[in-house]
């Protein structure tokens, strides 16, 4: 099962996105695990997820986190601000799944 972790500072708006993404996955009949957490949880969860997505409001952390992730062969990417704002769960899910493959 593909595992996706969304990160932002408080995990508030990101958790709404997670809900939308899970709905989109459900529609497509995909089995995925998606969670949202605060940035400080990144390192201890590095081993547990396939891909890490940042909310656009914390994109300035991308380079720093990506460097840590790359050592484990993983990636940290920023969600497209417009998709984030319009809460396009399906698009963000697709974006995440493409990054894993």
């Amino acid at each position: 099962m593909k595992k996706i972790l969304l990160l932002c500072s408080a995990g508030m708006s990101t958790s709404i996105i997670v809900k939308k993404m899970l709905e989109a996955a459900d529609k497509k009949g995909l089995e995925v695990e998606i969670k949202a957490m605060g940035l400080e949880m990144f390192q201890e969860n590095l081993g547990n997820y396939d891909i890490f997505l940042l909310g656009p409001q914390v994109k300035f952390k991308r380079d720093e986190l990506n460097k840590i992730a790359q050592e484990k062969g993983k990636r940290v990417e920023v969600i497209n601000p417009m998709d984030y704002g319009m809460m396009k769960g399906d698009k963000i899910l697709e974006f995440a799944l493409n990054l894993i493959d």
Partner: protein
Amino acid sequence: MSKLIEILEEKLVPVASWIGSNKHINGIRRAFILMMPLLMIGSIFLMIAAFPLPAYQKFMLETFGPNWKSVLDIPVDATFSLIAVYVAFLVAQQLANQYKLDSVAAGLLSLASFLILTPLTKVEGVGSVLTFNWLGSKGMFVAMVIGIFTVSIFRFFVNRNILIKMPDGVPPEVIKSFEALIPGTVILSLALLLRITMMNTEYGTIHDFIYKMLALPLRALGTSFIGSLMTVFAISILWSVGINSGSMVNGFVRPFWLENQIDNINALKEGLPLPHIITEQFFDMIWMGGAGATLSLLLAVGIFAKSRHIKSVGAIGAVPGIFNINEPILFGMPIILNPIMLIPFNVVPLVMVTTQYLAMSIGLVSKPLGVAFPWPTPAVISGFLTVGDLSGAMIQIVNLIIGAMIYLPFLRIIDKASKYEEDKVAEFEKEEEANKELKTI
């Protein structure tokens, strides 16, 4: 204009990135976030005791007798009046955590240092007592500084590996408890030395010294009208380039706000007039709908928007917006990195701070009681609870309308542009359709 945004982004992202990764700032920020539940629970008890409604006060007095308040004061004292004790432990613990040191040991050492520096008072017939004088908001600043110093000294020893070594076979838990021994002894001895030194000055304690020299002036600046405008502007300008800035900026100012807040709470408990206008809740009343007070914008969208895109952003953003979460609007409209919308986004909060500050200083609106609520509390309700009467709700409604009027002209520009585009796309599709039909015929 978009050039300006480019420059802003270039300059502000490194700043945010520095703040975001600075361990000291993060340690303090997290310590205060961890204390929030405690303060909110203390607030609930305080609200029950001191809600400024004469009829309610009379009812409680008649029902529970003249001592009803003193029982409720106990939890209030245990939270607000001991805040510096919590800060001394938590700041060191959170900071040590980030350096991967033994965080509980660091927290305890910091707390012990704080107590060494806070002298006991001898009371005839009672013995030595620790008074609340420096354990509450007045001691908070020193507690923070002690927390940082404790961890710095702790780190110094651990990094140079100056620790007591244990032979193999000793359980790790035991090793851990010995590791703090050398740095701990040094930290507490230094605290004692400082205490003795301060006793020989005119100040008597480090608390009195720091409070007069540093904490008081800093707090006066940070919680002044100008300081408030600067705080609000810093949050807006950082958000303008998409940096989640609320918690960042609040991290710097929150300790000062909290002192004001606790002063107001003490005044409320005593039934005295509230001394301060600026507390954290003053700003919670401003950020209606989130950064930029975007609830005002939602209002304008609801009444005037014509474009399908803007309308749908409004629909998506409405429910989270009521609970002060506005990323959908900030990124979806978008406001962030949008030269037109950023003008009202930065101006509206400054105007709102001004009207609210004015209204509170001339007594038209009551001052914040000092009680704390979770930030997702919806506007109008939050104003009512913050000041304890309807004037708080009224000023929020007035500010919402002012904000909507400032947002409106700018909204119309992007709404028109968006509508124009949508119409063109629709026209184009229609033509395509017509052409197709022609061909099939």
